């Protein structure tokens, strides 16, 4: 029932789907080469990411997985252009990343909607900044709001929506610029378990239509296995990439797969890696303390 409703919704979006596919197909090739990222820390430098080497193909869904504080969000922020690496290079489709831009849509963990703008104005913000007319921006906004099932709430202010609805608006807002890359920083981390599963399925449906390159940061192993084509596992601080696991589960992904042997095997593999890293992180903290 749920997917029938969504298909209907997506049929309305035929035009934007075509446009999105035209604009994003073959684009969004991310290359991270020998990237180091350092922060000032107590007068000295502290490495957040070390020797990151990563290539993400156009249209790929990659999860960055690791214990909290491992630098996975920092790496994502570097791809977004918010953080400059102190060494190494970052490029999208061969162009070096120097600053944030509308080609890389960003979805944050929470509280990232403009509270003083209505839901529609939030989503229309990107197109307006891109210089399209007000009327077109509004119609683009409505289109993407119906994509995430929130057309009825276009006049509401974000504070009146639930956390899950706010995140859906955040996704619509990031997509409204037709980005070739969608970067998501623990977007469902603050949601309850039931809402999170719904959001994951919703995201996969959207991604199936738009085929953006998707980089998704999470510390939730189930989430990483369920969503991605590849899981990039990062070590505890300083963050290094310690494993790159291919997820060969068939698509479309369904909830029933959560208990399949393949799923469990992948989950176990990730759990062992993460457990070691978390233990390492604990020891490091104890030594510091």
């Amino acid at each position, binding site marked *: 029932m749920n997917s029938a409703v969504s298909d209907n919704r997506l049929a309305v979006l035929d035009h934007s789907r075509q446009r999105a596919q035209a604009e994003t197909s073959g684009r969004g090739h991310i290359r991270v080469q020998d990237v180091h990222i350092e922060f000032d820390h107590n007068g000295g430098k502290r490495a957040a990411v070390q020797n990151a080497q990563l290539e993400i193909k156009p249209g790929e869904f990659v999860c960055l997985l690791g214990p909290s504080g491992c630098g996975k969000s920092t790496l994502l922020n570097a791809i977004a252009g918010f953080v400059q690496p102190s060494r190494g290079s970052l490029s999208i489709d061969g162009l070096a990343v120097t600053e944030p831009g509308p080609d890389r849509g960003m979805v944050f963990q929470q509280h990232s909607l403009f509270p003083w703008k209505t839901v529609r104005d939030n989503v229309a913000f990107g197109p307006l900044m891109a210089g399209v007319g007000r009327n077109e921006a509004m119609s683009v906004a409505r289109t993407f709001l119906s994509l995430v099932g929130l057309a009825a709430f276009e006049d509401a*202010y974000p*504070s009146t929506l639930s956390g899950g609805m706010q995140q859906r608006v955040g996704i619509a807002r990031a997509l409204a610029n037709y980005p070739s890359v969608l970067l998501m920083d623990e977007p469902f981390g603050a949601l309850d378990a039931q809402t999170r599963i719904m959001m994951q399925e919703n995201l996969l449906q959207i991604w199936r239509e738009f085929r953006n390159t998707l980089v998704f940061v999470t510390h939730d192993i189930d989430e990483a296995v369920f969503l991605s084509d590849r899981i990039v596992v990062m070590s505890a601080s300083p963050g290094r990439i310690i494993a790159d696991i291919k997820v060969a589960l068939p698509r479309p992904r369904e909830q029933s797969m959560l208990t399949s042997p393949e799923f469990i095997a992948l989950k176990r593999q990730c759990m062992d890696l993460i457990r070691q890293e978390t233990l390492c992180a604990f020891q490091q903290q104890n030594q510091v303390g």
Partner: protein
Amino acid sequence: MSVKQNLALQPAEAVSPALLAVPPSPSTGPSAPTPRRRRLPANFAHYLVRTGALVMAVLLWHLAASNDFNLLLNFENIPTPVVVGEALLVQLASQEFYLHIGYSLERIAIAYGMAVVLGVMLGVLMGRSRWAEDIILPYIELLRPIPAVAWIPLAILMLPSEQSSIIFITFLGALFPVVLNTVHGVEQTPDVLVRAARSLGASKRAILWHVVIPGAMPSIVAGLAIGMGVAWFSLLAGEIISGQYGIGYFTWTSYTLIQYPQIIIGMLTIGGLGTLCTLLVRKACTPLLRWQAKGGRP
């Protein structure tokens, strides 16, 4: 569309009529009507208590003044509320009284308008630029504690007319709260919103206009309301010392002319006008803060 908006924005209001439409059954009867029955009288009770508090003060004043109460506070020379009320009727019928009010309002309008424009501009500049803050903040810190009255000699020496001196003093009073609240609001801009705007392709100017200023608005509005209060405070100081018209002048002259009821009329007029102006500022700014969650006071 409006129905949806109501549903989304005012869940409580949207739900309660539906509850009330259900015929009262033994189970829903006691609980369903409570929201309505309680809400209206609750507000009403608040105003009743507030009015009562004011009436109580007038009553105490009457008792103290008519009995020549003199212990710590001396009421022997204070007219009773009835005498003041009679004098007020006389004033309300005279043209000069309105001239005084008109002069004061004009000064407030000019001085406050300048303070708001300059104050918000300075505040945004200081909030966005470390340099600007380092240059301007020392002046503000140093000048802010100087009371309006202390500015009077310098204002008279430096400015061409009494009118401009009074306006200058009023302007200064309103300026500081507006600047400081604006700085505070601008500096509190959540970083995640700036990053969101940047990733959506916003320029620096667009970020200022769409993110920083709207985000600072609750703090700016608070500054505007405080600034209006201080503007009246400063205006009175200016009008008492110099000038030929104005409600402050009226009050002070009444003292020198031993017209005691007029002193009280002047004071109450100042209080009333100040409250009214602050209320107007808040009302005028309400549309700018419509987005704030229901239940929070705008």
